[in-house]
């Protein structure tokens, strides 16, 4: 895990967010203190090149839970808790599918999601319909 990190900076060198001027988890690993663990695409390039085999993905997920989430992530998570998908997907999706000649799909029920994820949050209101 993070104890293996030698702060060599290789992960930061390859990271696209860093090369475009952003500071993400690789800044933390390279010894910097200005970063956001949310600013990452999970492209796994850092993970692939790290000579010490640090599980950067795991470090990042742990860090994210300490930082306030960006709104789109928070909303996406809420959608999953409400309806099982990261977007507000409802039965209307089957009309779109039909227009493309795709078979209707049986969507996951809110009850099922609740049985799986009830430990994540307070009861959420029903999934909103319509596109975002």
């Amino acid at each position, binding site marked *: 895990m993070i104890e293996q990190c030698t702060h060599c900076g290789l992960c930061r060198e390859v990271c*696209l*967010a860093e090369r*475009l*001027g*952003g500071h993400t988890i690789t800044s933390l690993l390279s010894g910097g203190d200005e970063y*956001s663990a*949310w*600013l*990452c*695409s*999970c*492209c*796994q*390039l850092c*993970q*692939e*090149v790290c000579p010490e085999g640090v599980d950067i993905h795991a470090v990042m*997920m742990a860090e*994210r*839970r300490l930082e306030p*989430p*960006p709104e*789109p*992530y928070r909303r*996406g*998570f809420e959608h*999953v808790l409400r309806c*099982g*998908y*990261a*977007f507000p*997907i409802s039965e209307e*999706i089957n009309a*779109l*599918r039909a*227009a*493309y*000649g*795709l*078979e209707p*799909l*049986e*969507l*996951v*029920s809110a009850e*099922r*999601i609740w*049985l*799986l*994820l009830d*430990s*994540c949050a307070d009861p959420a209101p029903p999934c909103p319909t319509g*596109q975002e």
Partner: protein
Amino acid sequence: MKFAFYPGCLVLQRMPQYELATKRLLAALGIGLQDIPQAACCGAPIVESFSDEWLTLAAYNLALAEAMGLDILTVCGSCTHTLRRARRALREPDVRRRVNGRLAALGLRVEGRSEVQHLLQVLMAHRQALRERIVSPLRLKVALTYPCQVFRPGELSGFDDPLRPQAMHDLVALTGVEIVETGVEYECCGSTYMMSDEALALAAGRRKLEASRGADVLVDACGNCHLLLERMQHAIWGDQAAERLPVLFLPQLLGLALGLAPE
């Protein structure tokens, strides 16, 4: 041969043409795809960033496919990676026991029997059949963009080269197109930055599109790449609308060469 088809939230909601092109192409190769009733979000970072229960959700999807007796076929990088990582985590008997305790409430059980393969892997395994089905060679210049998480980390994917993969080159080359090397085909598209820093995402997208100048079409194989590079292209170019580059999903391009009807 048959797979359980896992489109993931993004393709399910916004990209039915990707699902359709995938199903048509594979049908032409004699590969069936069966929808997974009641499949849910894979648990990808959108859940994992908040809770360890991402694993329960991923395992739930794996359990559904397992009950169908089928391996899973994915079309996005993120779902591919998340489901594979869950499958690896479930090798631990303790983890499996805990997750199965949860799944029992739904009458489900996961052992990790269903493998997770991205469309690219399946197409590579059927390259010969694909070659034989090409009826209309394409005279196009094509730029490529690889879905990162299908190939990385290499120890999880076990497929192709994690830093310089070749699968898309090999598949697209079958159609007779000219491949335009962009120098950034192996780089992340940056689509997911959209959720935390929109300007950074647009800068990343612009990098790809500018490097792809000279191509008639850019080809991707992931809903996230497509979201930024195709759907958000107007925002990337701003008022340079004349720059617009057509973007196709890989199975759409291959479908054209097989003479399959576009949408």
